[in-house]
């Protein structure tokens, strides 16, 4: 064991910090464009949203400095405690939370609001990294699997109850971290198959999906039998069970969709699957956002020249739909640049994670990359009309202190862990 040098900036990955700062800066530019009004005179007017966001960035930078100043060992040692604290914060919402836009996801403290679910991601990432990095942890073992799932499921359930299903989805994404650490592949296969079956059932209806899928399975088994991979005499119960599972799943999707889903959930899927065209009701936001992005063209209309952005026509444009501002004012070149920046940012974290010697650091880095990736994928996918309306923020771009700080903590905790990778501790 070697003593760490006093300089906290030693071993820091400046590439990642530069990417982080670039994204935060572009985020602020976008929020400024989306919220500025002609009567505003100065940038540091803290009554405006873009002015407030500067304060939030400032506070975020302080958090960042704190995060990289703390000893790396602290995070591993106290990961459980941090996790528990975030859970308490989530539970506390049911008692002290403020209801904003129909969801009780915020604490109101003075003039500020705090959204604990944004911090719970940090807690869950830390706890999962801590749990999976224990020596002899084997994810082929059912007990380990269940424990790991529980770590993700508890905050996910608490957040779903707020209700904020979009944020809860992020915890599901951490299953990919478990896969990286040895979770059997069939979890991923089954999960993806379920999603495909789910969408197919909604898109093509019960009968067609059922017949097609059963036909495909039959063909698959005929192939196996012909090549002597499958002895039907011995293994027919497996075959039947397989058919039953698939059938039951498709039926229950159909049932849940028709009987459990509320109209608004159905609508979201219907619009996405192209079953109904709706540009006024529930599909309004996405439609507006697509028109706004499309109107930007190749090079965009120019900074503060986006008439749809300046007309404040996309609802929630400064939060969930912030990407449409980039699309209108900076065009295809701008959106591509932002997407490439995000890709570089996430790949950088992933690459750094893979070079970690300490399993804890690696897993935490991996979790960080996956969390960013899913936010990026779901948010932009929604804004450009590829995914249903799921309300989660685009990291560093969407207005809001909690998410900015949550993401900042994730990045800088990882930078700290990475900086210490050379030290055996």
């Amino acid at each position, binding site marked *: 064991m070697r003593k760490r040098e006093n300089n906290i900036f030693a071993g820091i990955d400046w590439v990642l910090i530069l990417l982080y700062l670039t994204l935060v800066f572009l985020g602020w530019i976008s929020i400024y464009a989306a919220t500025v009004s002609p009567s505003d005179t100065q940038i540091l007017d803290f009554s405006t949203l873009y002015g407030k966001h500067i304060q939030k960035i400032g506070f975020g930078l302080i958090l960042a400095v704190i995060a990289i100043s703390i000893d790396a060992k602290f995070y591993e040692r106290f990961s459980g405690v941090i996790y528990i604290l975030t859970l308490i914060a989530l539970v506390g919402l049911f008692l002290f939370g403020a209801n904003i836009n129909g969801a009780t996801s915020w604490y109101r403290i003075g003039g500020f609001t705090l959204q604990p679910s944004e911090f719970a991601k940090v807690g869950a990432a830390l706890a999962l990294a801590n749990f999976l990095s224990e020596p002899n942890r084997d994810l082929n073992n059912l007990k380990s699997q269940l424990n790991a799932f529980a770590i993700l499921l508890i905050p996910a359930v608490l957040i779903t109850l707020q209700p904020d299903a979009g944020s809860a989805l992020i915890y599901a994404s951490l299953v990919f971290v478990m*896969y990286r650490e040895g979770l059997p592949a069939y979890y991923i296969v089954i999960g993806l198959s379920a999603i495909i079956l789910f969408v197919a059932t909604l898109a093509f209806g019960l009968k067609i999906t059922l017949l097609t899928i059963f036909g495909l399975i039959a063909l698959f088994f005929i192939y196996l039998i012909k090549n002597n991979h499958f002895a039907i005499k011995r293994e027919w119960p497996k075959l039947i069970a397989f058919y039953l599972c698939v059938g039951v799943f498709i039926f229950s999707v159909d049932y849940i969709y028709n009987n459990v889903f509320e109209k608004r959930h159905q609508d979201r899927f219907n619009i996405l699957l192209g079953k109904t065209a709706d540009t006024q009701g529930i599909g309004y936001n996405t439609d507006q956002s697509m028109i706004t992005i499309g109107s930007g063209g190749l090079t965009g209309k120019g900074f503060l020249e986006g*008439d749809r952005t300046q007309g404040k026509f996309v609802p929630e444009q400064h939060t969930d739909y912030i990407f449409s501002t980039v699309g209108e004012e900076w065009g*295809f070149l701008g*959106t591509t640049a932002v997407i490439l920046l995000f890709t570089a940012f996430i790949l950088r974290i*992933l690459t750094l994670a893979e070079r970690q010697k300490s399993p804890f650091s690696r897993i935490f880095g991996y979790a960080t990359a996956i969390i960013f990736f899913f936010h990026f994928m779901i948010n932009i996918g929604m804004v450009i009309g590829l995914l249903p309306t799921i309300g989660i923020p685009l990291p560093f771009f969407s207005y809001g202190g909690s998410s900015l700080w949550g993401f900042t903590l994730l990045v800088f905790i990882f930078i700290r862990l990475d900086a210490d990778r050379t030290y055996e501790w």
Partner: protein
Amino acid sequence: MERKYLAYFSIIGISILFILRLFYLQVIDSSYRNSPLNNSAVAIKYDYPKRGYIYDRNGILLVANQPSYDIMIIPQDVRELDTLEFCDLLKITKEDLIKRYRRARTYSPRIPSVFLTQLSKENYAFLQEKMYKYKGFYIQKRLLRQYPVKSAPNVLGYLGEVNEDDLKKNKYYQLGEIFGVNGIEKQYEELLRGVKGVKFIQKNRFNKEIGPYKEGQYDTVPIIGKDLTLTIDSKLQQYGEQLMVNKRGGIVAIEPSSGEILSLVSMPTYDPNRMVGRKRSKNSVELFGDTINRPMFDRGLLAQYPPGSPFKIINALIGLQEEVITPDTHFYCYGGYKYGRAANNFMGCHCGVYGAPIKLDRGIYKSCNAYFANVYRRTIEKYGKASKGTDVWNEHVESFGLGNFLGTDLPTGKKGLVPDSKMYDKYYPGGGWRAPTIISNAIGQGEVLTTPIQLANMTAAIANRGHFFTPHILKKIDNKAIEIEAYTKPKHTTIDPKHFEPIVQGMFNVFEKGTAQGSRVKGITIGGKTGTAENFASFNGKRFQFKDHSVFVAFAPIDKPKIAIAVFVENGYWGSRWAGPIATLMIEKYLNGETKRPYLEKRMFEGSLQEEYDDQLAVEKAAREEYQKEQQLLKEQQLAQKGE
């Protein structure tokens, strides 16, 4: 397998997918760009120009505009208001207010919709001063038509609101705008409406208008609608409508030398003002729902009847042209024409010229069935095979504008029917049909169907001795005569002009010695032909015969025809009973400006055929009921069988 690659692949894959999608949205699909129309951050305000007026051929104003005002609502802008005062102003109840508000809100909270339609001028003046108090409400001017002359709704048409289907057909309109739905209003919609002006206004999410969009560079100014002058003679039209009171049918009068339609009467009719104003929807339901009288059905253009005896004239002309007869060819009539060996192969005739030779002239003015059966048979059999003869005949008939659309400038029409050999081959598979099989066509009674306007046009072609001009209804645009080649270029029939003189002579004699002696007009030489078209209807395989339709075609004066007319009166017994007097009264009125046959006129004004229509309706109803009973019985039997 290296598990870490899954994440790399996913991230890079998703990024590529996103970039491709954005490339499509922003670069390939250009529908979002460059058009303020696709831009909902821009409010579009339309400036509707005055809709053109419509005049008759003598300058009588038929269609004008009247101002009217709608109260519009934008539900999300509505603030608390003094409901008591507001209801009082609008003269509605509080319940009504809430109901209307809810309805608008359900439609859309952001998009303006009509809250209350068609305020009177007085109400508007009063309300306008107080509207500032009611946020989210505003007054919008609406186009309403006004009809100073209560006549010819079938010609003029009416206005309606653009619905979603119309939007798909024509991109010019917005939902709820006003446009011509029928008649002239529809046909000449683009002339009448002008072009609306468009103003683009930048607004924000709250529908607040910030100012003109891009300094108004996309804005356009409205172009005023054009005034139209019709070929219709409004006085004649009204007179025709009066004559047809309590009767069903149509009158079409055409100026043979130009093809201008002088009148187009369809009865029963209605006051065009009923399709305007607050009671419009109620009236509309009533008018369209009247399936017995069918006032919205333009009988002059759409009703297809067998033409009856006037069609004999065409057959005579074809006989002359095909040289199967000369004017001096004679046939005999023994109370009818026997066209086959069987006892019932006999076509009766009421010409009354028993056993004496009948030449063309007498054949026409006595309307002898036997004469025309002989002529027709000779025509069909001229080429040996009936099919060839029929097709030659068909070509001649169609050259008179029968059996196809005339190409008029009226938005509706019917083809009618002129059979050809193909049709009969279908009817009688394996062939075997010959001239006697289709002999009824000789007297306009077989498969032939014509509309009154086709008959009038046919008469015009006879009056012109062999050609006609496409009938049309538009005379002037903004008081400038139209010049359209389709209307000024004569369409020649396949009959030589020389064959017309003996025919015209026969038609003249219809009044002098023939079937229409009672309709003679002093001082006017008229050529005409009566018709009595049998009126069959079949229900459930049973054939019923009702009172015959009364038909008459005429033109006058003989030498320089100024008017050609066709009159069709449903269930009018026979040609000279109703249609003849009506046709000649119309001619007299048009040529002399007045009529000097008060007795006849009175008989027409007061005559009613309502009883006949009621009788027919009763029979039809009984037949329908019987049919339903049979069906019911059949159903019960089937059920009983199943039970066993």
